[in-house]
């Protein structure tokens, strides 16, 4: 029973661990406690899913070819200015 008590975590304890586990290595003990909590807690499972969705979306936004919604372009006069300064070198 003592062991079970030690393994028990609240949602408040769990959510930072979810984040931490996505960022790198967490200790075996933490990973185990996280796993146990997640198997019994639907809310934290949803939370974990949400953070993973955000992580994957951020990776997409970060790609070189991601086109921003506003579809911004360099102003024509800035383009001209850059072209000129490139020619002058």
């Amino acid at each position, binding site marked *: 029973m003592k062991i079970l008590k030690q393994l028990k975590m609240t*949602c408040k304890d769990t959510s930072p661990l979810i984040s931490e586990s996505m960022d790198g290595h967490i200790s075996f003990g933490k990973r185990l406690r996280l796993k146990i909590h997640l198997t019994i807690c639907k809310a934290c499972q949803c939370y974990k*899913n949400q953070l993973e969705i955000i992580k994957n979306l951020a990776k997409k936004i970060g790609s070189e070819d991601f086109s921003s919604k506003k*579809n911004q372009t*360099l102003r024509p006069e800035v*383009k001209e200015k*850059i072209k000129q300064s490139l020619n002058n070198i």
Partner: protein
Amino acid sequence: MNDRQLDSSMWVDRYGDIMYRYTLLRVKNVDFAEEIVQNTFLAAIQAQANYAGRSAEKSWLFGILKHKIMDHFRSQKRFQSFNQSDSDDSSVDDYDDSGHWKIFPKDWGLDPEKAAENTELAHRLEECMSGLSEKFRQIFIMKEMDGIDSTQICNEFDIKPTNLWVILHRARNQLKLCLEAHWFQNKTSE
């Protein structure tokens, strides 16, 4: 065109806009973004002789651009020293006294593996990111968008790994709440 040759006369027309968008997403400010793109092209033309043809022209230019953006972050850094409050956990309010969620996180009904295909949602996240404090935003970008190593981020911002975890956790939490309020709320009421 041979992928392994540089053609500087075409740079601005070919890559100007995508490099500008890439930069604007990271530095937010139009003037800074224009300046960074211009400086990148200037640095590239001066470094042409060093181009070894190991990467395609575009990747090579983006490599220089990423350095310029990092330099920009560094130049701003001295204005935003690390506050102790950055590591306070303000998300305590999300839980009741027994450590349970006050408001249960919702099932967004999306498979995390496929979520990235949802362009509309990606744009929404982009908007939500602008609501983060500048420092949180930069750290989130470096870690999640650009995949920069945690050790390097800690060095850049002169913070400890534990501070980094707390900042990332808080940034994600804030983004989650923003998406929930501006996207999933509407989705469920449709």
